[in-house]
């Protein structure tokens, strides 16, 4: 009787396949300066530290409700957003913390929001699952799988109609690829040649279902053919691989050539959400992935081995991330709760609330 959806053998087999077919050697592309490379590492470290602490804080009930960690996925968000410039947009999934940081967000505001405090990004109204740093171009996390897809298309539509020249990355997961709206959105964007990049963060797991069991063809990028757009699979544990693919897609989009589909494949070797005890799978089957593919580990090794930075520098960067997160926790713990009269704020525009009360 099967109690685990994956066995150690199966996991190892998948790892082997991944290493053979998807994994790419870390190599910083020529168009990235050392500073930019180090900044990529810093952001990845920040995500790693932030979401590790989020797990602990959730267990202590400082953070409550639902929270989904971006651990192991750092390379995807950071690598992709490194190819964007100010004015570009992204839409997110339920795993939004990494996206906020990738777009240059403020961990103080994010930690406050996760603790529901009044000075959080969403004034305590959204929490982890609806975190949004709109001013940084991050159009919000969502709890509905795939729901960011058409919103990204709409953002790209504005760019097209107003000739604004910005692009939109639509982050979504393997789970989202089987929602009807995934198809509708890519199809529409392709038909209208909108400047949007559909980036599938394929961590191979939709909670307890492995992608191989969820679809006939588990290579997401293959679907691009159906829409007449370019599609590529890259190593999601490798920020440079992701960066390069997104950079090229952004170029195409800005040139008016329409959307692209990028599959950044990695592996979710943590629970789905911070309190997921992963009963559906043999937890130890995650270990080989964590061991060999952990992007922080790989990045550290690369920076030192490539001579980009020495060990001290690397540790200093990592430590700065740790400190920043520590400070954000202190900050958020001391931040005030929203007052009761703010319950009704933000449901409608201020003029509506003035006219109608909105209750």
């Amino acid at each position, binding site marked *: 009787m099967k109690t685990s959806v994956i066995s150690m053998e199966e996991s190892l087999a998948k790892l082997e396949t991944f290493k053979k077919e998807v994994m790419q050697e870390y190599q910083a592309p020529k168009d990235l300066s050392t500073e930019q490379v180090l900044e990529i590492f810093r952001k990845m470290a920040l995500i790693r530290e932030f979401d590790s602490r989020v797990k602990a804080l959730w267990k202590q009930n400082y953070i409550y409700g639902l929270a989904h960690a971006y651990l192991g996925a750092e390379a995807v968000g950071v690598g992709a957003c490194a190819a964007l410039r100010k004015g570009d947009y992204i839409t997110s999934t339920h795993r939004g913390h990494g996206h906020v940081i990738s777009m240059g967000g403020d961990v103080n505001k994010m930690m406050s929001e996760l603790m529901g405090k009044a000075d959080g990004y969403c004034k305590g109204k959204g929490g982890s699952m609806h975190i949004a740093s*709109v001013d940084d171009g991050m159009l919000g996390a969502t709890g509905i799988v795939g729901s960011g897809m058409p919103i990204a*298309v709409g953002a790209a539509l504005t760019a097209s*109609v107003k000739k604004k020249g910005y692009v939109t990355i639509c982050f979504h997961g393997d789970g989202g690829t089987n929602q009807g709206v995934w198809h509708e959105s890519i199809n529409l964007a392709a038909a209208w040649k909108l400047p949007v990049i559909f980036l599938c963060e394929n961590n191979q797991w939709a909670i307890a279902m492995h992608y191989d069991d969820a679809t006939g063809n588990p290579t997401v990028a293959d679907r691009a053919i159906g829409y007449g757009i370019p599609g590529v699979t890259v190593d999601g544990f490798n920020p440079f691989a992701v960066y390069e693919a997104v950079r090229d897609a952004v170029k195409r989009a800005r040139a008016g050539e329409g959307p692209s589909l990028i599959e950044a494949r990695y592996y979710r070797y943590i629970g789905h959400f911070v309190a997921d005890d992963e009963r559906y799978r043999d937890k130890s089957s995650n270990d080989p992935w964590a061991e060999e593919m952990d992007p922080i580990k790989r990045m550290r090794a690369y920076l030192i081995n490539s001579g980009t930075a020495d060990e001290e520098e690397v540790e200093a960067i990592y430590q700065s991330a740790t400190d920043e997160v520590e400070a954000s926790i202190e900050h958020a713990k001391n931040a005030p709760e929203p007052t009761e009269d703010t319950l009704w*704020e*933000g*449901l409608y525009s201020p003029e509506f609330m003035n006219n109608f009360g909105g209750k």
Partner: protein
Amino acid sequence: MSNRTITIKKAINEAHHEEFARDESVIIMGCDVGIRGNPFGVTAGLYNAFGPDRVRDTPISEAAIVGACLGAAITGLRPIGEVLYSDWITIPMDQIVNQIAKIRYMFGGKIKVPLVIRAPVGAGGGQAAQHSQSFEAWFSHVPGLQVVMPITPYDAKGLLKTAIRGNDPVLFFEHKRGYEITGEVPENDFTVPFGEAVVRRKGDDVTIVAVSIMVHRALKAAEELSTLGIECEVIDPRTIYPFDYDTVMESLRKTHRLIVTHEATRRSGIGAEIVSQVVERGFAELDEKPMIVAGLNVAMPYNHILESMVIPNEGNIKQTVLQMMDRA
């Protein structure tokens, strides 16, 4: 400033043209809204006047259309999304209920969502079960949305303009079998505010709150009842949320009798909410128990005789008034 008599269809068309000309951010997308000018002709001429960038024909992808309206709205456009039959609003329900209605709130109030979804409602003519529904009750139930149901050309034009110019999402439910209703509309630019009902006919004996097409049926019933010495006060709320209860209560304090009528299904329809609100606000004004005249609790049948049993008509309204006044 002169008035002309035009149809609701023409009024809606004019609103589009005028708002498109007034603000470059206004765009529209939906099936066949562009070159064909919408199957009913409602968006005729827009494509030629404003071009394919702003007047977009779409594939049959309501979820993408509505979701894209949201994405466009929060990044600087003022989109109008058309779902040709309100029955198909079920497909983009997630975008409307979980995204559009809530995104401003969830994100702390920062962004604005200036979008309009037009989704014509209305039964009759053998359109059958999947093309005859009206879901104002569903959307009135979702905080963050507004629901608008005009049934005169003046209101259709004025309310659509207000919807387009506002910064909050609006569901605009015109009646697809009411497009030929005529009425006076000024030539100049004007808007109609939300949350203001209109007393279409004054009377002392009973207050009839009528939604959409039922306004016209209630007026017909009122004419017949007048010959029997019963005078009905017919109120057209025009917007379902925000809803103008003050006008209804003022009327009730005069008549002490309430009937609510809508074409949508009786069970858990908007009539239930209106009655409960009125009872809460003015129980002591009621001399009779309030009644609702609405569609029967059944899927709309194709056959025309059966269909006419389901759709509430002026006879049903008249009968209910007579019963209420012990003159049945």
